[in-house]
């Protein structure tokens, strides 16, 4: 490709296949806690 550079590939839908185990941390977003957006959470299910 000469016009485009990939910053990140299409992994989102695939993540559903093994996803949903629920072992990950909760992700409160409020301004008074360990707040965060879900996207900066770690997945606990990576080998």
């Amino acid at each position, binding site marked *: 490709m000469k016009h485009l550079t990939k*910053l990140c590939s299409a992994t989102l839908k695939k*993540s*559903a296949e093994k*996803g949903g185990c629920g072992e990950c941390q909760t992700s409160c977003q409020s301004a008074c806690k360990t707040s965060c957006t879900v996207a900066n959470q770690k997945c606990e299910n990576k080998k």
Partner: protein
Amino acid sequence: MVHQFCFKGINIIVDTESGAVHIADEITYDLCEILTPPLFEACPEHAYKALSEKYGRYEVTDAYGELYSLYKAGELFSEEYKGPDSKIPLTGAPIKALCLHVSHDCNMRCGYCFAKTGDFGTGRNIMDFETAKRAIDFVIERSGKRRNIEIDFFGGEPLMAFDTVKKTVEYARGFEKKCDKVFRFTITTNGLLLDEENTDYINREMSNVVLSLDGRREINDKIRKTVNGEGTFDAIVPKMQRLVKLRNKNKDHYIRGTFTKENVDFCSDIEEMLSLGFRNLSMEPVVLKGKGPYPLSEAELPRIYEEYERLCDLLLSKENTDQEFLFFHFMIDLDQGPCILKRMRGCGAGFEYVAVTPEGDIYPCHQFVGHQEYKLGNLYQNTFDFALSDTFAGINLKTRSGCSECWAKYYCGGGCSASNLTVNGDTAKPYELGCKLERKRVECAIYLKARRMMG
């Protein structure tokens, strides 16, 4: 859904549904902007026409070819993720995280406190061990097969109940082997009561500690005051520095500040934190409704956007220096983050996560405490309102108004039900100002990644 934005000269195209992110040159960026799915092999005539003043036909064909190949690969204008809904446990989900309000009392009086100076309007009280024990029993029972359990010690100021904290940790650890659970403890403190003993304890037992400091002395001291109305900066900073210095690098900690209308120039607070030696930083917008000196409004938005951009520059300029730092909200993992199901469910308040008060009352999360109509149950009465919990479990990106159409949805997860309630009086109605800030932060995070990749 596709979202395009140009950030400090970098053209970025986000394909929301697939999670793919592309950096584009100008012609491709311009072309993508006028395309609508479905795409076909040949570039549509209207696109040539629209771009004819700027680019030649041959160039446009070439750029289109690349966009089309992304489209074919499911990385551009990809279809909405539909399911499998059955995997989203809408009801009866195990509870895996507790916010233990060990102290409904506080030794500070901060101007923006949502907890009504620490007692949540429910009366000053310290949680006794018996109540904490019941809370641990409750979460072990309700966590089902979930192995990892989080316990956050919260308040008020949790160090006012340090004895309960220690006993609770010991009690919970006792179940780890027996019940095949792993407890992760975290604590959020204002730092005033930190001493050698509890600092060592926190560094040993807590996987994360959040220390509240608003940055510059004058900013911090104007809002974060002692009960007697004195500033707290000089008292807390050395204690926090000591804790951070002694803390194992493998364990998390954050220096967390809040910005209000008074310090929309919060980069200066970040710089202050850096000069104090802190490197894991967070600075968050206050969520308050109405008028007064603190609440943020639409009028501050352009200024805050600018400040987030300034923060990007600051972050990049400090990389590979001894002041290199982390900013919590920009740490988005574009490739390896949580699965899409987690992203749809968001925080889990009310069904995966609950808060417990010193009285043993159970609420959907710390921010709902004191809102009687949202009380889920009580540990002494052995009550739990499954129907109410299920209404929380039913909230996700698809059911929250506006979230389905939001390009940032899988980065955000659907926002905060409690802020929605505070500002809009409805848990499922996104707090628009918060959404705008969230989208800006996501753009910043993507930009930073792009900038690093391009060197």
